[in-house]
């Protein structure tokens, strides 16, 4: 699903956030990405979703080399990926329902399909009662769950989650992680960046550990 070969990322300021990263994550796999604050976790996920472009090396996504892909193709790649952002990135002038429906609207689904799918996703995350509310009136954890619902609503091939439980209490965190596990079981590849060491240890998935932009342990063995 995801293959990095000698990927480096240097930000315009000159800071090298990732150095010479190589790993391979198979289709249908699930893995964690850890590291200290500023290690480069978000950067790595952004490279996969083509939000940032790598400065060296090659990235393959579902067999396609995306490191020098044309700008116009990017939206279609992104539609295959569900991304849960560290800072939610919700639209604060739309209801929870409209936020979750957005990926389907963008992809051009039909009205009826949209309603069905959105409600199913909201239900899974315990947000059905908040459907008509605006994100600003939700608690931090509820907003995070809206972001998760939006990421999974169009059944992506790949789910990228950046600190999806940063604002959740331990019980809810475990539930959400189990939900990711369920997605994985129906064939979705899942990569989760988190610093919740306890949680990682309690679950039996391979771990990619980043340290100052370098890979300390890889998922290769798991592949």
């Amino acid at each position, binding site marked *: 699903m995801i293959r990095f070969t000698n990927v480096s990322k240097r930000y315009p300021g000159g800071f090298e956030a990732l150095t010479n990263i190589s790993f391979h994550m198979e289709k249908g796999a699930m893995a964690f990405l850890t590291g200290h604050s500023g290690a480069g976790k978000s950067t790595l996920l952004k490279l996969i*979703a083509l*939000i*940032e472009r790598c400065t060296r090396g090659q990235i393959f996504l579902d067999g*396609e*080399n995306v490191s020098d892909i*044309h700008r*116009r*193709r990017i*939206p*279609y790649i*992104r*539609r295959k990926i569900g*991304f849960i*952002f560290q800072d939610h*990135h*919700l*639209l*604060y*002038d739309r209801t929870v329902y409209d936020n979750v429906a*957005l*990926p389907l609207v*963008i*992809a*051009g689904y*039909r009205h009826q399909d949209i309603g069905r799918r959105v409600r199913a996703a909201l239900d899974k995350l315990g947000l059905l009662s908040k459907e008509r509310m605006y994100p600003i009136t939700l608690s931090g954890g509820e907003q995070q769950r809206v972001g998760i619902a*939006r990421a999974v609503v169009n059944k992506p091939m790949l789910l990228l989650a950046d600190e999806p439980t940063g604002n959740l209490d331990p019980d809810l965190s475990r539930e959400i992680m189990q939900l990711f596990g369920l997605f994985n079981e129906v064939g979705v590849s899942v990569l989760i960046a988190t610093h919740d060491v306890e949680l990682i240890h309690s679950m039996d998935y391979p771990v990619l550990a980043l340290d100052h932009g370098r890979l300390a342990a890889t998922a290769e063995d798991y592949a």
Partner: protein
Amino acid sequence: MGKRRNQRVARSRLQDWLPRLQHPRIYLQRHAQVALDSLGRMYRNPLPSLMTAAVIGIALALPSSLYLLLDNLHRMSGSWDGQASLSVFLKEKVPAAQRDALAGRIRAWEEVASLQVITPEQALDEFSTHSGFSTALEALDENPLPAVLVVVPQTAHTGPAAAEALQKKIKLLPEVELAQLDLAWVQRLNAMIEIARRGILLISALLALAVLLVIGNTIRLEIQNRHDEIVVTKLIGATNPFVRRPFLYSGLWYGLLGALLAWLLVSAGFWLLAEPVAALAGLYQSDFTLQTLPLVTLGVLLACGTLLGLLGSWLAVGRHLSAIEPS
């Protein structure tokens, strides 16, 4: 290798586009929905939307009303065209019959639009009532005035050169004592219309620019305003046309609404001006009235408004949207 890659890219592009080709109805539906959404967004913030539309309306109303005024002036000056005429004084000894025959001949020339015969008696009448010399002239035993033919050239010949050519041609006639060309009025009118034309062109250009700027500016600020939304939609797979569409529709609506307002303003302005214009016309003993607003003005206004709106938002979108990329 390169070829295989190209093939694969081509195939996946086709896959991306396929839904649109397969479901043209959904595609059109989506367009209609975006158009309505943009309208709804304006409707939900009626005051600011009206403010923008009002500015556009004012900017569109001014050149249209000026143009309409110039148009009316032109029509009015048409009733003055008689002034751009030749006064042909016949020799004193020319008898009435010969005079009328001559009038008939000249009237038939193609460069002549109309011809009016003023007999010596009529001339004396008119002269004494208009000049204030009535008592003085009454003292005369005999009518000292000759017959006059007032010749109005065809419009095509009213240019100074053509009118002068006509004058020369008439002068050569044996019955004619004198052919006087009243060029001053033509020149004055031309000079005035030239000034007005330049002024209106200048104003129109400036105001069209103003409309473009206002719409461009509004759309630009709207884009900045919805910066986060644009980033987020791009992050979850929106294409550039998808992001662009609502702004283009906004511009279109603004232009259209502005044009409608402009029409209302022009109508109101004409209504306000009707009274003094009638007073002025009365002074000129003219039956001139302001032409009621032709419906074609509405059409032209709407077309211009919509086009300027689209163009303005297109420019703003082109400049500012591509700059917004998630990072």
